[in-house]
């Protein structure tokens, strides 16, 4: 069944047609019977008429050749010519012809006994009524061609049946339209489901649905609920697993640090062990961050944020690493505000600055800039480190992708999730992230442009106070 609507239209129309046909056949048979009686009745009336007219006009000269006095003229004048072609004979008691219409033979066509009967003559089948005249001295034979009588009756009946045939296409159209209206709720439900985003597992609204669809909507909602629950379970599992890993990693790290504090400084394995533990810790943290910045976790938590203040705070948090690598950091920017989630923005900044520090050489330079370009708040993070080949600018945002695989020439530990966190946060804020060659001669420039940035003078900035 390709379409319920087409199927129903065809089915309903067939039912209506068959029903009408049966009714028409039944009506046809009934009508034929009725018209038979009607015609017979008419023949009796004709006999009555003949009783009045013929005997009177011929009473005076009954003996004379009546047969000749009536012949053709009477019938030709149409006096006795009924629409159905009624013919007559008038015979006396012995069967001798007194008068007749033109088409009738000269002998009596039927036995002289009262009643209806079928008789064949003149190459046709006739329906004949034989009746005695009022005085009983003569007989009237009234004949009607059976086929003509039948045709007449049929044409009368068909006149009544034809309109039904014309009604069928009209009914088809009306049924089509009515079904269209009736099936609208299904269409609406289908549209509602089709327009959804993959992450939207909200139940379908079922208050205004017809009874039949309510059941369907309930089943669909039940499925959506189970799907939602299983997604939630999966997300929670990832978060819980990562969370539970923190304690054993903390144990590894402290034992590792304890060992390192007493080991000779040139113990290569010790250093590698430390950086492996560090990398594992980072990976777990990054997974937790990715989990926490999932769109359904952050819904509705956007507020006015002082982006410039966030940048300064994040730089301050990294001062240890900056000092360790003796890197120069510069920040140029006006006070720019955006609408965003504090945690997510911090994660984005942490990752961009963290990468710049990791992939720049000792005593390298890092620059962060913020400005308003039209309505957009533009953030730039630039370094003079190893950079990224231009053909990999897109791929570095993929999860677990690391430039040059795990044998990165910079020998830096990382887990390949940093830039996908950056991308996720950017997408969450409707922002665009781009990589470009750094303006410092070598290295990388990452540019994030947030839509809807505003300056500190904007009333929205005031509402949020000094900002979180």
């Amino acid at each position, binding site marked *: 069944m390709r379409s319920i609507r087409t199927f129903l239209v065809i089915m309903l129309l067939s039912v209506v047609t068959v029903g009408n046909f049966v009714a028409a056949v039944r009506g046809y048979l009934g009508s034929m019977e009725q018209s038979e009686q009607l015609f017979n009745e008419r023949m009796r009336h004709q006999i009555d008429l003949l009783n009045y007219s013929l005997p009177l006009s011929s009473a005076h000269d009954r003996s004379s050749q009546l047969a000749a006095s009536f012949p053709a003229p009477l019938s030709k004048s149409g006096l006795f010519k009924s629409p159905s072609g009624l013919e007559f004979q008038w015979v006396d008691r012995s069967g001798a012809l007194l008068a007749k219409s033109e088409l009738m033979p000269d002998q009596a066509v039927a036995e002289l006994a009262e009643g209806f009967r079928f008789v064949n003559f003149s190459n046709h089948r006739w329906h004949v009524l034989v009746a005695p005249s009022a005085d009983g001295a003569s007989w009237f034979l009234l004949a009607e061609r059976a086929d003509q009588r039948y045709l007449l009756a049929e044409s009368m009946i068909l006149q009544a049946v034809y309109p039904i045939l014309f009604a069928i296409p009209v009914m088809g159209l009306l049924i089509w339209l009515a079904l269209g209206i009736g099936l609208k709720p299904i269409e609406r439900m289908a549209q509602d489901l089709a327009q959804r985003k993959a992450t939207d597992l909200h139940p379908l609204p079922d208050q205004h649905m017809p009874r039949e669809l309510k059941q369907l909507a309930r089943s669909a909602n039940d499925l959506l609920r189970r799907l939602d629950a299983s997604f939630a379970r999966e997300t929670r599992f990832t978060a819980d697993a990562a969370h539970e890993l*923190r304690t054993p990693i903390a144990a590894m790290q402290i034992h590792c640090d304890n060992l390192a504090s007493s080991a000779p400084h040139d113990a290569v394995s010790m250093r590698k062990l430390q950086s492996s533990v560090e990398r594992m810790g980072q990976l777990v943290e990054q997974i937790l961050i990715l989990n926490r910045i999932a769109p359904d976790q952050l819904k509705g938590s956007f507020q006015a944020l002082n982006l410039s203040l966030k940048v300064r705070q994040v*730089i301050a948090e990294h001062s240890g690493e900056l000092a360790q690598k003796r890197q120069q950091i510069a920040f140029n920017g006006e006070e720019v505000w955006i609408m965003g989630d504090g945690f997510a923005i911090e994660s984005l900044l942490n990752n961009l600055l963290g990468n710049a520090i990791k992939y720049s050489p000792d005593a390298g330079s890092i620059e962060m800039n913020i400005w308003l370009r039209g309505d957009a708040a533009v953030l730039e993070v630039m370094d003079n480190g190893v950079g990224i080949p231009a053909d990999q600018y897109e791929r570095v945002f993929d999860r677990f992708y690391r430039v040059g695989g795990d044998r990165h020439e910079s020998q830096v530990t990382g887990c390949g999730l940093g830039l996908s966190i950056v991308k996720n946060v950017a997408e969450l804020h409707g922002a665009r992230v781009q990589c470009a060659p750094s303006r410092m001669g070598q290295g990388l420039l990452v540019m994030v442009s947030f839509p809807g940035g505003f300056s500190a003078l904007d009333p929205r900035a005031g509402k949020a106070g000094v900002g979180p």
Partner: protein
Amino acid sequence: MRILLVEDDELLADGIVAALRQSGFVVNRVASGRQACTHMQAEAPDILLLDLGLPDMDGLDVLKFVRRKGFPTQVLILSARDSTEAKVKGLDFGADDYLTKPFARAELLARLRVLERRLGNASSALIEVGRLSLNTRQHEVSVDGESLQLSRREYMLLKALVENVGVIQTKESLEAKLYGWGDEVVSNAIEVHIHNLRKKLPENFIKTLRGIGYLVPKA
């Protein structure tokens, strides 16, 4: 310094105990909340290192018990719960500091030193950075043994910088330390105090990071 460590994870606890003993602390370790409370009543330590996810009760309940009984103990929470809400809750319940797992040994020791200083232990009340020394108990600052005359705000500013040596302090975080809520802060107040401090301190003692903040580099 006597420290009580409340941690149910055997491996982590052993690591922390070893780290603290190497650094000269006296450490006792218990693995449950109830043991912690019993131990506190018998002998209150100077510092309580408290895990939140304990097998028998929530670490926060141990913290409540410690505060209700009024023990003069500094409490450092060690927890895998890293959300802002969890940290705020811990601090609001009376913790003095909050460190999330996993952590570096150096950071744990640094934070313990801060708590030690707060307890007013003579040896740790003294912060020395290069030629400068700052006594947090006597509020005295000296360079090469010669004491400096500082205003209250200058002292607080310098203390904030040397307490976090090597860590950039943003203008906003310094303002928050120097001024209370409702204090009218002139927009260049910090710059003025820094300017005045610099005149009294050795050259380049305070480093400016344009647009970001100030820093006292590690000597």
